[in-house]
Structure formats: structure tokens, C-alpha cells
């Protein structure tokens, strides 16, 4: 077993452990912190896979901006824990059955022969850096990139309109 594979397994164990921690934490703040750990691990995977720009974007946008927003809302609402149990008793066993089926559907083909030869190729050095990504974005993906800005504007206006306090006195 070479060093790359050992690194992969250690990082994968951390990522899966952080995901399970998010899933089973009773406190929503712990869930958010576990998710930040998961995002950081995935950013390390991006670095290994030759995507340094995506890795930094992952850290700043996901682990930075999005998770801070989550933590802010959790603490604003004060809903770290939910009181009471689920209303539907049959819902949880059915959900776990569906989850196991999904895991099987996602991974059963990996056991088939013929896939393991697909080794990851060597990437040209520095190809996932900011310069290469920027050139690809502004050459081949210019229109989607511009549409993205409209999407963010719509999301911003939507968030402001939804949370605008009308000033009504509620009894």
C-alpha cells in the first residue's frame, strides 16, 4: 500500500467521521462544527486532486461564509435542540431502509471488474490554479458565469424580502 492510498484512507475516515458526527449530534451547533471539519477535509482532497483554486474557494465560501451563516441563524433563533420526538413512528425505520438502499445503489457497481484499472491520470502541473480556472471561466463559460451573478442578486433580494420585518405588532 503506497503513501497516497494511506493518506486517502486517513482523510476519508476523517470526512466520514465528521459526516456521521453531523448526522448524530443532538446539538445543531456541534453539527455545524462537524460539517466545517468535513468541508476542510474535502478541501484537502481538492488540493490532492490538483484543484488548488477550488480548494481555497471551498474553504472561504463553504467553511467560511456558508457555515458562519448557519451558526449565526442557529444562535439567532436559539434552536440548538428540538423538543419532542417525531410525529410519525414508521417514518424513521422506513427512512433508514431507504438510506441503506441508496448506499447499495451508489456503490454496488464498484465491485464489478473492469473499473479498477481507471487510475487517476497525472495532471499537468499548475493546471487547476486561479489562472487556468479564470481563463476557462471567461473563455468557454462566460455566459453561465454572468448568469451566476444574476442568480446571486436574486438570492440576495429574496433573502432580504423574506426576512424583512413588517413592523406588525403580533399578539
Amino acid at each position, binding site marked *: 500500500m503506497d503513501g*497516497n*492510498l494511506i493518506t*486517502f484512507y486517513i482523510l*476519508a475516515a476523517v470526512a*466520514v467521521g465528521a*459526516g456521521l458526527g*453531523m*448526522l448524530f449530534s443532538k446539538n*445543531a451547533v456541534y*453539527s*455545524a462544527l462537524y460539517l466545517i471539519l*468535513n468541508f476542510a477535509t*474535502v478541501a484537502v*482532497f*481538492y488540493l490532492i*486532486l490538483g*484543484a488548488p483554486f*477550488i480548494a481555497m*474557494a*471551498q474553504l472561504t*465560501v*463553504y467553511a467560511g461564509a*456558508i457555515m458562519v*451563516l*448557519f451558526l449565526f*441563524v442557529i444562535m439567532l*433563533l436559539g*434552536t440548538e435542540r*428540538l423538543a419532542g420526538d417525531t*410525529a410519525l413512528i414508521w417514518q*424513521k425505520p422506513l*427512512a*433508514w431502509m*431507504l*438510506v441503506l438502499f441508496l*448506499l447499495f445503489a*451508489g*456503490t454496488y457497481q*464498484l465491485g464489478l471488474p473492469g473499473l*479498477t484499472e*481507471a*487510475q*487517476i*491520470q497525472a*495532471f*499537468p502541473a499548475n*493546471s*487547476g490554479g486561479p489562472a*487556468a*480556472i479564470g481563463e476557462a471561466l471567461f473563455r468557454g*463559460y462566460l455566459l453561465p458565469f454572468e448568469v*451566476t451573478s444574476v*442568480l*446571486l442578486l436574486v*438570492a440576495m433580494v*429574496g*433573502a*432580504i424580502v*423574506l*426576512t424583512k420585518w413588517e413592523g406588525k405588532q403580533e399578539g
Partner: protein
Amino acid sequence: MVAVDNYIALSAILFTIGAAGVLTRRNAIIILMSIELMLNSANLLFVAFARQYASLDGQILVFFVLTVAAAEVAVGLALIVAIFRTRKTINIDEMNQLKG
């Protein structure tokens, strides 16, 4: 080099954890976090395949998914705050009325 199968397996496991979060948790904020985890596992697969085929397109798609996720979280959390103001709860089971 690590075979791409390992990344497929890891991505499938992370996606399943996210799906389990959506299906079993009742806290709306944790459900949003689980959706983020699922988007993230798809991103990991995009980057792994971009590496395998030595193409940048997968990384560009990750960039767009990142943007959509940011927009989704902003609107989703705004909805949760708006619902909490009227219903005083973010339990998914209790959000069963269109008119608050």
C-alpha cells in the same frame, strides 16, 4: 496514484450520510446542512473525474455548484427565519400549513 473508485465510494458514503440527515432529522437547519453535505459529495466526484480525464470542465462545474449552494443557503435560512417568526419552531413535522 489513488484509483478513482475510492473517490466514488467516498462520495457515495458522504451522499448517503446527507440523505440520511434529510430523511431522519427533524431540525430544518440540520436538513439544510445535510443538503450541503450532499452537494459537497457531488463536488468531490466532479473534481476526481476532472483529474481522471485531465479536463478542467469538472472544476468549473464545482465553481457553479458552489454559487448555487450559497444562493440556496441564503434563501433557505431566510425562509427558516421567516417561519420561526410565525410558528416559533423549526421542527419540520410542525410545518404543515400553507397559511401561517
